[in-house]
C-alpha cells in the first residue's frame, strides 16, 4: 500500500483528504500541520507521495519545506493551495512539483491524479 504524507494546517481539510485517500486504499500514516514538522518526519515516514499545502503555520511555508524535503529525496509532491498568486505559484513550480492544485480541492480529481502518479 502506497504511503502518502499530508501536510495541511487546517485539520478538518486534512482529515477529509485522509478519509478520501484511505477510501481509495492509500495509507496515510501521519498528517502534519507545519513545514518544520514535515521536514523532520519525512525521513521517518518515507512516503511515496506528499500532499503539501503552501500556506502553513510555522516559520517556513510549504514551498520551503518541499524544497528541503526534495533535497533529501526525490518524491512526487503535489502542492495544494488557496493562495494562488503568481509569485507563489512561480516559486512553487520552480521546484518542479508533480502537481499544483488550487483549493477548493476536487477530491475525486486529487485521487485521480495521485493514482496516475503512483499506480
Amino acid at each position: 500500500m502506497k504511503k502518502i504524507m499530508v501536510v495541511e494546517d487546517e485539520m478538518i481539510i486534512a482529515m477529509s483528504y485522509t478519509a478520501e485517500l484511505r477510501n481509495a486504499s492509500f495509507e496515510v500514516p501521519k498528517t502534519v500541520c507545519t513545514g518544520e514538522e514535515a521536514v523532520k518526519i519525512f525521513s521517518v515516514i518515507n512516503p511515496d507521495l506528499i500532499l503539501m499545502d503552501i500556506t502553513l503555520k510555522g516559520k517556513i511555508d510549504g514551498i520551503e519545506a518541499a524544497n528541503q524535503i526534495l533535497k533529501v529525496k526525490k518524491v512526487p509532491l503535489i502542492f495544494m493551495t488557496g493562495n494562488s498568486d503568481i509569485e507563489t505559484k512561480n516559486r512553487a513550480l520552480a521546484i518542479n512539483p508533480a502537481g499544483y492544485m488550487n483549493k477548493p480541492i476536487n477530491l475525486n480529481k486529487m485521487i485521480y491524479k495521485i493514482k496516475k502518479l503512483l499506480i
Partner: protein
Amino acid sequence: MMQNASGISLVKNIRSYVLYILLLLFTIISLFLISDRARFIFNTKDRIYTETLDRQSEFIRNEILTVSNFIYHYIEWNHNSRELFDYLRTIRYGEKNNGYIFVMSYDGTVLLNDIQKELQGENLWDLEDPNGLKVIQEERKIADNPDGDFLHYFWENPSTGKITPKVSFITGIPEMEWIIGTGVYLDSIEKETSWQVKHIYKNLIIQLAVFLFTMILIFLFIYKKFKNFTFSVSKDIYVINECFNKAEMDSEVFDISRIKYDEFSEIAYQANEMIIRQQRAEKEKRFSDLRLKLQSEQSPLAYVGWDLNNKIIEWNPAAEDMFGYTKEEALGQGIGLIIPDHERIGVEDLFYNLVKTDNRKKNINQNITKDGRIITCEWYNNNLIDSKGDALGIVAVGLDITRRLKSHEEIAQKNIELEKSLKEKNLLVREVHHRVKNNMAIISSLLSLQSSSIKNDYLQSLLQSSQNRIHSMAMVHEHIYRNENLHDVNVRVYITELVEYLMMNFGNIESQVSLNIDIADVNLDLDTLIPLGMMVNEIISNSFKYAFKVDELFELSVILRIMDEDRFYLYIADNGPGFNSKNESVREGAIGLKLIKGLVEQIDGRLKITAEDKTAYEIYF
C-alpha cells in the same frame, strides 16, 4: 462711398480753364495776324501810290483816246472847230470833277483850257517847268507818236495855285495839227494815297480797339473764372485743413458738405474714414488701457514690468502685497530686489531669451520678499514690443503658489495614504474571500468526512450534492480572490471550470461525455454569479445523476448568450430521458429543481423546461 459731394469736378474745371487759355492764345494769334496785315499795308504805301498813279494814268489815257477818237469822227463829218471846242470844254471827269481836256496847236498856242482860261490864245512853245523841261515842245514830240504817251512835268495846279508835279497823256490830231491832252497832278495822287493810308490806319485802329476790347473782356472773364476757381480750391483746402486740425484736436469727422469739389470731398471722405478708424482704435486702446489699469490695480496677480536693463518699471498693488515693497520702493530697482541669488542667473537668461527669441514663457521660480521670506511664484512672462516690433521690456504676471505647492504636497501625501488604504482594503476584501473560500473548503471537507462514515448511498448522495453546492459557491470566491478585479468574475472561465469539476466529481466521466460548451465572454457580479453557478451545478448534477448511462455517449450542452445589454440566455440540455419517464417523480421531487426555480426567481429570470427527446433547461435572466 463719399457722401454730400457737390457734383463739381476739379478736373473738369481745369479742363475748362485750359479751353479759356486756348481761346486767349487764339485771340493773341489773331491779333498778331492783324498786326502782321497792317505791317503789310504800311510796307505797300508806295505800292498804293504807284497803283493810284497807274490807275489815274490809265484813266486819263483812256479819256484822251476816247476824246481823240471822238474828234476824228467829228472832223470827218463836220469841220466846225468851234462846236467841237464847245463840246470839249464841257468834258469833266474825276471825283471832284476837276479833270479837263486841253488842246494846243502844233506851234504851241493854247487852243482850249477851260480851267486856265487865261492861257487860251497864248503861245507857250518855249515854256519851261522848274526843272527846265520845255513842256510844249515835249508835247509836240509826243504828238507825232500815233499812240500818244505820258509826259511828266511841273505845272501850276489850278486848285492850289502851286507848281506841282503833273503827268499828262498827250496825243496828236494830225489832221487838225492839234495836240490834245489831259493830266493829273501828282500832289492830288499823294493826297489820295495819304487818304487811303489814313483810312487803313483808321480801320486798323478800330480793329485793334475791337480786338483789345475783346481780349480785355476775355481776360476779365478768364480772370474772374480763375479767381473763382482758385478761391473755391483755396476754400476747400482751407476747410480740409481746418477739418484736419479739428480732427487732430478733437477727433471730429469732416463736414463734407462744406467742400465744393468732388476730389477734395473724396480726400475728406477718406480722411473721415481714417478718423473713424482712428477713433475706434483710440477707443479700443483707451478701453484696453483702462482694462489693463484696472486689471493691474485690482488683480490678485502681481504685475511686474522690467525694462531692457532689468530694472523695475511697473509694480501693482498685488506685487506690493506679495513682496512687501511699495511701488515707490520697487520702481527703478534691479532684479535682485525680488530674485534670490540662486535664481538670478536663470531668470536673467529667461529675460534675455524672451527679448531675443521667445514672445512669452511661463516659469516657476523662487522669490524673496522684503522680510526675507522665500516664496515660490508662477510667472507668465510676456515680451513687450512697440508698433515697430522693437522690444521695450518684459511684463511678468506672477502668482504666489507657495501654499498651493504645499497643498499639492499634502494632497499627494493624502493620495498616497488613500492608495495605501485602498490597497489594504482590497487586501482585506481579498483576504475575506480567501477565508470564505477556505471556510467553505472546510465545510466541504466536513461533509466529505461525514460522507465517508455513511454507508447509505442516498445519504451519501445528499451529502455529495451539498458538497457540490458549497463548492460552486467557493469557486466564485476563489475567482474573486484570484482576480485583480474584486467586483465581478468572468463567467466563461467560471462555468467551464465548474462543469469540469462536476464531471470529475461524478467519477471522471470526461471520456464518455460529448460536451458542447459555449459561454459568452462576459463578467458577472457575485449577486448574479453565485445563483447562476448553483443553478448550473443543480442542472448538470441532475443530468449526471438521472440521465447518464455508462454504456451510452452522454451529450451535454451548456450555452450562455448575451441577449441584449443586461439580459442573458442560459441553455443546458442532455440526451437523457424526459420527465415522463420512470424517473419523473424522482427528478420532479428532488430538492434540486426547487432550488433551480428559486434561484431563477432570485435573479429575476424565466425558466422553461422541455423534456421530450432530450431534457433542456432554458433560463432568461
